[in-house]
């Protein structure tokens, strides 16, 4: 035996060269060991350790993800399963005069066609129930669904929705949220106003604050509409069984709310609805409410078969929620030594065609808009406005990235004008343990100064740029 072989034997290294025999545990996938010379760790793997908290434990679902064995909706199939497609409006604002589905129904392979008029309670939404499952009388944005088809293949379903003829009477659309706030602007939903929610935070006396300020900074900031772009699109399978019980497999972040919403739209007791949340291939706020699920359930009821619906990438953009564009007016008064004395904020959120999570976004954006700073005098007002665009809703940060862009940009403007280092001016104003927030809440476990210091040290902020 050569020296090298002896070393290998001593280290219990075995080369895995043989093919797997039937005796091998077949549940384990055939994969080549990652490393032919495994390094034996001195301590057990993080997942095996006690004191579990603080361990860098690898994910319990990591192996399945790594091997491509995680089952998403699109990997699932049931005997006799049909495929659904939804007809999209393609017009931003219009009254529906008629929907003719006869040609689609006549197409061989089409098993069921559904329109908004057949949905028991055709509205849903987490705050206000202003969104139809499928539009019946009016469309509010171009990505609205107006009819749905279930067919034996996706291609037939696609062909069928192209055969559905919808007659529209165009209505004047409105796209600019600022114009939409005017009294004479076309109204998207309500007869009175397009402003559907407001929020106000008032603390101290802003007039007094501005009078006491040495410098006043006034700027307008704006942000864009953004899609979540999850790798996995919105997808679900609905199975209405012969006992009248519905099972829905869905890629959704909130199953408890989803069941309540589906029970409401279908006018069914909750005990007859089962939602199974599958592994979600990215949510970021985009899958926090139902979308096509009630339509799939009704198609399944009509066809007597399970029905799968998977949104295309285009539908992900045009027919699901997005991040709010916000127009942000900031007026801030500071003293000569860089202390913020007063801040006035006005936010206008483009709410799109439906409320979705706009009310929550409005509230969080408004509360957070003054920034993590001790400011005695604050006035923050926020408005969210209907427009005939894709609905805006929950997206990672609920308005916070937008207002952070505004308050931190202005912070640097103030620092530059007063010739104070940007780190220093933040440290002078930042919250500390026990600070009072703009809503008068006494804050605990506050580490904003620590985070500034830690980041600056690691970045080597104090050293001149290379």
């Amino acid at each position, binding site marked *: 035996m050569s020296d090298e072989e002896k070393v290998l034997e001593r280290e219990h290294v075995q080369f895995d060269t043989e093919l797997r025999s039937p005796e091998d545990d077949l549940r384990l996938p055939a994969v080549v060991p990652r490393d032919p010379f495994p390094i034996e760790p001195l301590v057990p793997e993080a997942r095996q350790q006690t004191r579990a908290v603080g361990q860098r434990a690898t994910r319990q679902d990591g192996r399945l993800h790594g091997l491509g064995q995680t089952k998403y909706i699109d990997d699932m199939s049931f005997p006799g399963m049909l495929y659904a497609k939804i007809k999209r409006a393609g017009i931003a604002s219009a009254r529906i005069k008629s929907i003719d589905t006869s040609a689609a129904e006549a197409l061989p392979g089409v098993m069921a066609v559904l329109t908004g008029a057949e949905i028991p309670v055709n509205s849903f939404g987490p705050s206000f129930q202003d969104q139809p499952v499928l539009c019946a009388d009016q469309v509010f944005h171009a990505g609205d669904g107006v009819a749905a088809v279930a067919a034996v293949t996706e291609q037939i379903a696609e062909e069928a929705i192209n055969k559905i003829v919808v007659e529209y009477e165009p209505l004047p659309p409105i796209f600019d949220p600022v114009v939409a706030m005017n009294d004479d602007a076309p109204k998207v939903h309500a007869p009175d106003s397009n402003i559907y929610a407001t929020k106000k935070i008032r603390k101290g006396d802003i007039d007094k604050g501005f009078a006491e300020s040495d410098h006043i900074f006034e700027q*307008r900031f704006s942000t864009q509409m953004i899609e979540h772009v999850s790798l996995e699109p919105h997808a679900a399978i609905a199975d209405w069984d012969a006992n009248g019980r519905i099972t829905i497999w869905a890629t959704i972040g909130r*199953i408890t709310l989803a069941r309540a919403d589906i029970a409401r739209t279908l006018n069914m007791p909750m005990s007859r609805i089962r*939602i199974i949340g*599958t592994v979600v291939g990215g949510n970021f706020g985009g899958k926090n409410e139902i979308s096509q699920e009630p339509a799939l359930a009704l198609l399944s009821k009509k066809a007597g078969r399970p029905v799968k619906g998977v949104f295309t990438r285009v539908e992900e*953009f045009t027919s699901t929620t997005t991040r709010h564009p916000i127009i942000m007016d900031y007026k801030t008064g500071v003293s000569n030594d860089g202390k913020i004395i007063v801040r006035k904020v006005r936010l206008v959120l483009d709410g799109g065609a439906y409320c979705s999570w706009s009310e929550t976004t409005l509230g969080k954006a408004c509360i957070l808009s003054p920034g993590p700073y001790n400011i005695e005098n604050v006035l923050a007002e926020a408005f969210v406005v209907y427009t005939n665009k894709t609905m805006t809703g929950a997206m*990672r*940060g609920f308005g916070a990235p937008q207002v952070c862009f505004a308050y*931190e940009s202005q912070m640097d403007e103030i620092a530059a004008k007063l010739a104070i280092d940007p780190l220093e001016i933040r440290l002078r104003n930042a919250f500390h343990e026990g600070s009072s927030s703009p809503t008068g809440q006494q804050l605990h476990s506050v580490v904003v100064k620590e985070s500034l210091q830690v980041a600056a040290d690691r*970045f080597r902020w104090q050293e001149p740029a290379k």
Partner: protein
Amino acid sequence: MKRRGRGIACMWYPIGFTVAANPSAATVKVNEDGTAVVLTGTVETGQGSLTVLAQIAAEALGIATDDVHVVSADTDTTPMDTGAIASRTTYVTGNAIALAAEAARDILFNAAAPMLGVKPSQLEAYDRKIQVKGFPQHAVAIGDVAHQSQFVLGQPAIGSASWNPPTVAMDPETGQGKPFSTYVYATQIAEVDVDDETGEVDLLRITAAHDCGTAINPMLVEGQVEGGISMGVGMALQEEMLFREDGIHVNPNLTNYIMPTSLDMPEIDVDIVQGFDPTGPFGAKGVGEPTAVPTAAAIMNAIHDAVGVRITSLPATAEKILMAIKDSREQAQKQISA
């Protein structure tokens, strides 16, 4: 010519819903061999929350992460949960699971007390054992206790609990109140090169220091920070849904809707700020959403530092930056000639 700049941005962000109730309920079952099963109504959305929830249950029961299996997201079998939203899973669902695990653990303590000849209050769960506080050598394997409890005493070790973050309603006129139970804080610093002839931005590095209270799993926190920064980069420099005059979306596809790929990502240095929140499970808060919050602000401040222009509307595309540079040079020219 390429000009280098750096920019800093800090933020605060709340955990859970604004005032509104957002409860989580959970059930923890300790098996007869000392492993455990957690039932939760929350959903794994890719962030690794089920692993974190397993770690919380394991910590409360004194066992390892691998000893816990988490069953999630089935309205027929799992308890109610407000879901994977508002950065609330670790904090709210985690608290519910910790309470449920403690309830199951108390049943084990009652079974172990006569085995060890002490009171249940003198016991602790650690290292897969139920042991006497201060006398770790006086211990029984947790599996033996679970077996004794279920098959001899007839008391299966199962616990259920729920938790909802405490809030105080906001005054409708002034907004004064306690809308959230707790907040997290973070700072990100970006370094960029901006080409002042083309307006193009090279994002070189981002240093991120994030607070999440106790980091239940530091590796997953780092993963969240890196993912959040990628969304922040898209918001800062690239992503924008554009509409025609008649409201039809112009770029509803990934060829025209530009978003960051791995090639657009800067070098990222993540630090977890030491913190402990007494209201969270083992001191934890949350980290999901805040990671995407300060990135765009830091990058805009870095662009300003590099070429002296303030971008006030996102995204800061090369065209927008170049236009701003030209405007600022014309302004300077006018001032000189005046």
